[in-house]
């Protein structure tokens, strides 16, 4: 007899193990909690349940109760309450936990069911694993190893279906590999609300296709590739580039907007091959935008900065920083620091230290785009809130550096330190740029690097570790995926040296030391360190910033405050 543990939990029995699960949990998820694997293809925790693959068949039963007396019927053999097992196997994905539910996954019938489904799925599957991109991360491979018979009884001709159908600019379809699980159809319909995929024909000849005149071209199309359990949908970008088992996975954050979708960056020998979403139910569920997957291409962009420059000539980092220090010292209190909403929390804090050392004014450029109400917000800077938290800025960034331009015109500013911002694009004229000395720390060449006296190449988000604060004030960490190019130096190291050359106190530019300092200097970050920060992030106290008019509209897990809801998206 099982008794419920808590009112909101119900106890179920899975292969003899009892577990308390929240109401509404299905059998697959409940089994996962006790370490019992229920294989499936069509089920996806974030999509509707259709129950079409039949891989998750389980046996279910309920404790027997005498219908007349309502008393439990005991089994004399075991001394426990008898279980009435339903002879017909049921699908786990559509079986919700109910009090006293008993589940068996380890019986001969279930083994036979799984072997049967595996065999059926493979009879018309091309078995072209040697040339298939999904190999190595293919559910069909994994589960045929785990639950299949290991041999084929099929001697008939396999079905022919379209190969290489371009569903959209980024997604390629091989219909012969498709197992018709309908995950991609449901994703487009339910998550993106862009209903473009469907099946045509029937029976085993059913074929996935785009509706006539439509294309799978929404900015979330590559999620269909992620959730495709087989190699039917592949990314035109990643296809045939690399075997997945050679790739190293590193946790990272999507920096294209303040949503901060959690990602995994896949690299080999210093080269990034793809970016995929990492589940975080508080931020991006299991999705990410297509645009965020292309960010790694900036790492090897032709305009990447790889040489330290002093007045346009190559030099060493030490010489450049010493010159920069001299320029800064000479400028007295006429220095302005332009931070970047793309910098990490740690960089923001060292930038603040630099600004305090120099008595410099701080500025920041906003990047406002259109939010898509999903995983791209209106604020295209990933870490404005980080700058607020560590105190680099006190108010929200502006679109143009108008105030700085005025200060340059009056001569109140003679030196500008730019942390990767193109000052020209931010509204400063060529004349204004020519009037000041510029110290530039950044990754890519732009108009400002041409005008700068000192240019120090630094690292992209993929080449360093750090943290970002997203729109929910969730502190999230990213880790170094690949080494930076020769000639580029870690931003923190550069900033720390710049602080010293500018006359400040010595600081070690590495994560543990910056965090040790942050924990004591910033109230909201006490007792936090990079190493112990959870992979799913940590929500910081946002109340000190509640009055700021943040510009984002809603996204999947973010609702703007009522006062800002009516503002520009």
């Amino acid at each position, binding site marked *: 007899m099982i008794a419920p543990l808590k009112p909101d939990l119900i106890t179920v029995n899975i292969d003899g193990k009892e577990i308390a699960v929240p109401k509404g949990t299905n059998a697959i998820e409940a089994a996962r909690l006790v370490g019992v694997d229920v294989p499936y293809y069509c089920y996806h925790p974030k999509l509707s349940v259709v129950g079409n693959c039949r891989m998750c068949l389980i046996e279910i039963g309920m404790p027997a109760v005498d219908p007349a007396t309502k008393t439990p019927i005991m089994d004399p053999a075991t001394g426990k309450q008898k279980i009435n097992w339903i002879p*017909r196997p049921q699908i786990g994905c559509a079986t919700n936990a109910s009090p006293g539910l008993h589940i068996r996954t380890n019986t001969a019938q279930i083994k036979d069911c799984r072997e049967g489904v595996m065999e059926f*799925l493979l009879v018309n599957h091309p078995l072209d694993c040697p040339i298939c991109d999904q190999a190595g991360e293919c559910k069909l491979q994994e589960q045929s190893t785990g639950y299949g018979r290991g041999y084929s009884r099929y001697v008939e*001709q396999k079905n022919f279906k379209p190969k290489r159908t371009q569903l959209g600019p980024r997604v390629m379809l091989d219909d012969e590999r498709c197992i018709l699980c309908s995950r991609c159809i449901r994703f487009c319909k339910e998550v993106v609300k862009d209903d473009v995929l469907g099946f045509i024909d029937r*029976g085993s000849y059913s074929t996935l296709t785009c509706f006539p005149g439509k294309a799978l071209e929404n900015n979330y199309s590559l999620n269909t590739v992620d959730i495709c359990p087989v190699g039917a949908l592949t990314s035109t970008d990643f296809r045939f580039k690399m075997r997945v088992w050679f790739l190293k996975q590193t946790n990272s954050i999507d920096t294209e907007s303040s949503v901060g979708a959690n990602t995994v960056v896949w690299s080999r020998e210093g080269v990034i091959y793809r970016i995929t979403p990492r589940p975080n139910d508080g931020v991006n569920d299991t999705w990410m935008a297509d645009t965020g997957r292309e960010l790694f291409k900036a790492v090897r962009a032709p305009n990447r900065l790889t040489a330290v420059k002093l007045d346009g000539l190559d030099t060493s980092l030490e010489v450049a920083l010493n010159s920069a220090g001299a320029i800064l010292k000479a400028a007295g209190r006429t220095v302005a620091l332009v931070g970047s909403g793309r910098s990490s929390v740690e960089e923001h804090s060292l930038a603040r230290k630099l600004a305090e050392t120099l008595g410099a004014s701080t500025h920041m450029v906003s990047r406002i785009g259109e939010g898509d109400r999903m995983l791209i917000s209106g604020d295209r800077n990933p870490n404005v809130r980080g700058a607020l938290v560590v105190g680099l800025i006190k108010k929200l960034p502006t679109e143009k550096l108008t105030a700085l331009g005025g200060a340059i015109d009056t001569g109140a500013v003679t030196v500008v330190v730019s942390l990767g911002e193109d000052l020209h694009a931010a509204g400063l004229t060529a004349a204004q740029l020519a009037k000041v000395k510029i110290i530039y720390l950044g990754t890519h060449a732009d108009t400002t690097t041409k005008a700068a006296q000192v240019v120090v190449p630094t690292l992209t988000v993929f080449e360093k570790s750090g943290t970002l604060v997203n729109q929910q004030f969730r502190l999230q960490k990213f880790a170094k995926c690949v080494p930076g190019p020769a000639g580029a130096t870690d931003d923190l190291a550069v900033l720390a040296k710049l602080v010293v050359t500018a006359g400040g106190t010595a600081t070690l530019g590495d994560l543990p030391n910056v965090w040790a300092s942050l924990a004591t200097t910033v109230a909201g970050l006490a007792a936090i360190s990079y190493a112990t920060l959870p992979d799913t992030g940590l929500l910081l106290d946002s109340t000190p910033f509640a009055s700021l008019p943040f510009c984002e509209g809603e996204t999947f897990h973010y609702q703007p405050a009522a006062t800002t809801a009516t503002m520009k998206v």
Partner: protein
Amino acid sequence: MPAPQQRRIIFKHIDAPGYTNDLACYVRHGGYEILKKAVTLPAATIIDEVKKSGLRGRGGAGFPCGVKWGLVDRKSGKPIYLVVNADESEPGTFKDRYIIHQDPHQLLEGIMIASFANNVKQAYIYIRGEFPHGARILEQAVAEARAANFVGPNILGTSYSCEIFVHRGAGAYICGEETGLIESLEGKRPYPRIKPPYFPAVLGLYQCPTIVNNVETLCHVKHILEMGGDTYAKIGTPNNTGTRLLCVSGHVKRPGYYEFAVGEITLGELLNEVCGGPLPGRTFKAVIPGGSSAKILKFGETFTLKNKDGSSRTLTVEEIPMDFDTLAACGTMGGSGGVIVMDDSVNMVEALANINAFYAHESCGQCTPCREGSLWMKKITARMVHQQARSEDGALLKSVADQIAGRTICAFGEACSWPTQSFVAKFGDEFKGYAETRKEPKRADALELV
């Protein structure tokens, strides 16, 4: 002339000389009088009469009609729909088409009574795509009945209103499965729904409570109300009440459609007396008693059944009464009433190849076992017939069928695997020896199966 053993209630006027399918003729023969009586009764009384009658659904599953009506969620506040399943597509079944063609108003009267009893404001007749003529007749009949105030707003001067819509299918067997039919009616691919949670009585058409009844079942409702549930229950045998339509096709002298009190005629009487026995010089070999998805019966086999008092009786195929329960006890089913007879000229491998081709073509493709298994079985039997049979193919066929039955979303899994399971089990020798019996070279012009 109807065969003497028949008891015609539903088919009373079918093929009667001078009987036409227009409203005037129907009214002349007493039509719509029961509807007039029904609208004066409390709805619960009508449902009670149907429950008392013991009427079982005539679409194939034999589910008690009154129980089905009792399951409808009446507290949801959502509208209740009645959907008439006129997608008669089971091979071997052709009863509903005669009701629709020759006596459509009988169906409409049944629909209106059932609608009134269940407070249905909109009823849909989902008619098979291959019945365009029937659809036109129904559309005409609905228009006539509407003009005469039997259908539509405030029927017969009462406050009750109900519209009937005729919806044509597009030609898919799976649309006869009730949840597939509902999906199709909603304009989607007819993928049957998973149950739970989508039981039509709760979450049916447009996620509202829905009753799906077969054409013949609804016709019976009219006669139940006419004679009273208790009187109706006396027809036939206990738990197998009323009359039912049987469609006999295949190798008998007089194939056709017949109506009998359920269980009052045996299979032997049906085939030998009513249908005139086998064709000259032939003998019966096998019979499928309830549409092509029912398990086949082999002449010569016997069944030992338990009686209620604990004793047992042994039946030959000829002695099986044509009722739901005995057929089920013999391992097959009454199904949709399509009796398909095969004599000794039939090779069972080729017969199964034909059936398998049908089911492979009609599988909707939603769930794995049926989608892949039905086509695989078709490929095996087609290969056996047209190319190369192997002695192990029979066992393989059975194994594939076993992997389908009971593991699919809808009953199509059983429908496509029961023929294979029963053919192989009962005619295993033919499957094993097929390679030897068919030594002649394959004809170059041999037609491909469907």
